[in-house]
């Protein structure tokens, strides 16, 4: 079959080795974090493989970290909700309506993805100061300030995943409902919404992840007690590292795996991989 050159068996081994190599590269950091969190020794270095097994760091996670984690969860859920409220109608309009300059409008919606997150962080900081000087309300270092910026960042992801579903959606279903006498709103609630729901779930999850993983924007906008989890970890890694970080990171890794398993059950893997990346 293979004509000249490499025999099939060798080719198989080579491809298996290549795939294994890349997967080791992708997963080794996670394995190492989980493994090192069980190392009990006092140390200047982090140890993987662990030298002496212990759970001591799990008992010492500071309440501050849990507080930051709680803040991130609240922030992420709110961001996902706001991004869906903005993104779902935008996707419906972008896919369904026919009008001039649609490409331009689509590009405008995608713009937050083209701007480096650091620049979005500073720009919103500056904007909040300007608005604050005008109306006397400063949102720097508050939850609403973070929610606004994160929603701006996350909306394109919802638009992307909902549009992906809509493009495959047959409008005949809606026409049938309408012709049978259902109102437009009822048609939307009973026909359109259930069909696009997988896209909405996937988009909401991506929005949550964008918010949860964001460091640069939170670095500028989250002062003092309003420091979300990822930004807090960033600071600790930069200035005073402490092994309890490994312990809490292990929780996050396990939590993420559970979350993706549940989402996969709800949405299906195909949808999840298709809608990734947004826009």
């Amino acid at each position, binding site marked *: 079959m293979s004509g000249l050159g490499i025999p099939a068996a060798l080719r198989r081994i080579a491809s298996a080795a290549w*795939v294994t190599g890349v997967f080791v590269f992708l997963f080794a950091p996670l394995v190492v974090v989980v493994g090192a969190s069980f190392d009990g020794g006092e140390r200047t270095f*982090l140890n993987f493989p662990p030298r002496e097994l212990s759970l001591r760091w799990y008992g010492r996670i500071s309440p501050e970290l849990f507080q930051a984690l709680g803040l991130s969860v609240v922030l992420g859920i709110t961001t996902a909700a706001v991004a869906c409220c903005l993104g779902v109608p935008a996707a419906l309009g972008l896919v369904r309506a026919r009008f001039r300059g649609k490409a331009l409008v689509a590009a405008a919606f995608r713009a937050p993805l083209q701007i480096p997150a650091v620049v979005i962080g500073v720009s919103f900081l500056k*904007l909040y100061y300007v608005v604050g000087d005008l109306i006397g309300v400063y949102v720097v270092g508050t939850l609403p300030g973070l929610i606004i910026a994160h929603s701006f960042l996350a909306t394109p992801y919802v638009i992307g995943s909902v549009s992906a579903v809509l493009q495959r959606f047959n409008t005949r279903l809606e026409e049938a409902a309408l012709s049978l006498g259902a109102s437009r709103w009822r048609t939307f609630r009973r026909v359109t919404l259930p069909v696009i729901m997988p896209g909405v779930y996937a988009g909401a999850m991506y929005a949550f992840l964008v918010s949860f993983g964001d460091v640069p924007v939170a670095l500028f906008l989250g002062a003092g007690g309003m420091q979300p989890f990822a930004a807090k*970890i960033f600071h600790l890694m930069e200035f005073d590292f402490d092994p309890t970080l490994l312990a809490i990171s292990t929780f996050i890794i396990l939590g*993420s*795996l559970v979350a993706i398993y549940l989402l996969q059950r709800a949405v299906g893997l195909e949808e*999840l991989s298709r809608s990734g*990346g947004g826009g």
Partner: protein
Amino acid sequence: MTARWHFVLVPSLVLSLLLLLSSQIAFLRGSFFKDLRLGRLGTELTLENYLRFFTDSIYVDSLLLTIRISATVAVLTLLLGYPVAYILARMRSRWALLLLAAIIAASFITIVIKVLGLIIIFSSGGTLNRLLLSTGLLERPLTIMGRPGGVVVGLMHFTMGFAVLLLYSIVKTIPRSLEEAAEIHGAARWRVFLRVVLPLSLPGIVVTALIVFNLCMGAFTSAALIGGGKVFTLPVLIQQTVIMQTRYGMGATISAVLMAATLLINLLSVVLLARLDRRRTAVA
């Protein structure tokens, strides 16, 4: 039915545009005023900051370093990732779906945690060094932390999963029957790959490369943590300039140059490719 849909998008569009334009104007206009530090700006319009950027080697070097790192990451990620995407797309067993799920799962985990893992592996007292020292392959600990090479590895880790998923969906659109047809006519596997699969996926490869490049140009978290205050890519420099030195004008200038340079490189590569493509079809 269709008549109404564009009203649905108006509120989102207005809000998005308002936030986009107001924030960008509020910040970037600062680049045209003299930077008086401590967050204060002069009142007269001037191009002083831009002049400073292109005459001071700190800024120009940082720009070149950012471009070099991003281009290296784009090339290496594609070289490593494309074969994986191709193998997964052509796999007939259920393993393919499982491996795909694993990549998606990995992309769900927060970047700071992955960087933490990379640091444990690659730091001078880390896993890799202990392994290499104990096997005698290395005599002294060697580290890529705080070096451009380390930032490249970090950014490759950041973009790899995403690139493989994108390339996978591109290879999937190329019918397997095309390859089988070529093979039946006696073409060797690697020739089929070079003459059929690669040209057909080339547009997708270029798009993926550009996306990876753009992500790297703007990447902050892994560059800052792995660079450890020694590797200054433009995003890291922006954060330093604004937070440490409170120079908003200069920060805005660096941001403007970063975005303009990224856009320019994208446009140039698209034009260049279109020209190459035309020449190739002319020859054929």
